[in-house]
């Protein structure tokens, strides 16, 4: 790993932690710290108290003077690994350097972080790495505003609005289904209504009596009081005649047998 690659990686890690990129003085201090962790403790002078403290901590853990054979990156990873392992109570890895598997894992993790930042799909990771990636995403989300790449933004918009555009045909189908169902229901009810109506009409026709005789209807009294009224006939006598005639018709209608003509009477 070149110095530029280290610098980029360091900047990315700092970005993940929400820190500002290191300036030149901090980079120089970091280089000195790395050199000290590799065993070159003599390079460290008194200007970096924090770095000196960390180096002493590493030395106390037995790492400071044993990583001289590895490169700076490997030593850093090893030191960090031992620190975290100590914090978690694990036995520190005291191997001389990172093997090929560890490097691959680190590379995959770095790719995952890069992908997460860029909004791309992450490579297949182990569960521990995925957890770490998840924590990284949480830290980044809590510290930074979410800057989405145009591709990510477009994919999100498509996933959000694409659902509506793709769901319009089913909605139309659902409406057509409802309309068809309502039409069928209306037709069924209309048909049943027509059927019931026709049955009612038939029953009414059957129950309807035939044309009632004229003698039972309300009509002029010319048939019972024909011609000029005699002078001796009073209005009271005429109303008596009318009343009795209509009373006979009314009784006939009320007591039944209206269709049968009364004996001795013309319809």
């Amino acid at each position: 790993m070149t110095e530029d690659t280290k610098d980029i990686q360091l900047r990315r890690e700092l970005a993940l932690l929400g820190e500002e990129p290191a300036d030149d003085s901090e980079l120089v201090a970091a280089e000195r710290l790395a050199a000290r962790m590799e065993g070159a403790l003599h390079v460290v002078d008194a200007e970096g108290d924090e770095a000196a403290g960390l180096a002493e901590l590493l030395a106390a853990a037995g790492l400071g003077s044993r990583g001289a054979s590895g490169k700076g990156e490997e030593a850093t990873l090893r030191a960090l690994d031992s620190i975290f392992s100590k914090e978690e109570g694990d036995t520190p890895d005291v191997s001389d350097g990172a093997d090929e598997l560890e490097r691959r894992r680190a590379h995959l993790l770095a790719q995952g972080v890069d992908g997460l930042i860029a909004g791309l799909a992450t490579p297949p990771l182990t569960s521990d790495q995925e957890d770490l990636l998840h924590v990284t995403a949480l830290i980044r989300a809590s510290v930074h505003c979410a800057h989405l790449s145009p591709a990510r933004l477009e994919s999100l918009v498509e996933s959000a609005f694409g659902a509506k555009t793709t769901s319009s045909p089913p909605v139309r189908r659902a409406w057509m289904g409802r309309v068809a169902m309502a039409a069928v229901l209306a037709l069924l009810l209309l048909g049943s209504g027509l059927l019931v109506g026709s049955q009612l009409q038939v029953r009414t026709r059957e129950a309807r009596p035939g044309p009632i005789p004229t003698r039972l209807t309300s009509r002029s009294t010319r048939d019972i009081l024909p011609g000029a009224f005699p002078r001796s006939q009073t209005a009271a006598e005429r109303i008596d005649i009318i009343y009795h005639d209509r009373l006979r018709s009314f009784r006939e209608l009320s007591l039944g047998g209206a269709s049968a003509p009364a004996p001795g009477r013309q319809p």
Partner: protein
Amino acid sequence: MRRLWRKLALALSAATRAAILFAGLVTGLSGCSGERAGKPGGGPPRVDRALMSCLGAIRAYHRQADLQLARNRPAKAIDAVSGILSLACSRRSNPEIREAVLDAYGRLARLHMERGELDEAARWLAKGMARKGPPSFFRANLHMVRGDLLDARARALDKAGKGRAADALRRKAIEAFEASARMNQRLLNEVLK
């Protein structure tokens, strides 16, 4: 779940509309049937309780008038006959009632005439003649009453020494009797057909 509720609501809405349509259809059909059943064959209405009640009331008023006349109280008799015209059922369109009401006008005119109240008799007679209706024996009877009234006026003019005017009224009375006879004859011809 939400879609299910929406579908259910739409189905209920459609069912409600269809039910309203169905109810309207059935109501319309039954209404038409009921209308036909009320007037069988679309002819004249049958004799019913309302008609009998009205005829009974008219008959009762005439009976009261008879009794008042028997008690020699012609004014009370006039009041009784006037009660017929104040009956609400006297405005019904049944032919029997129309004719009975015309007869009441004729009787009122005669009652006033018998009391010498010729102008009042003429007023009631004019009211009766003004009532709308087809020709009938009762309307012909009103022409007879008019002739009698004109004759009574002519007699009054004779007493007053106005012979010419009385004669003119008697001619009018004859015309009234002829009008009554023509109407009766026409109606009799129709009855005897």
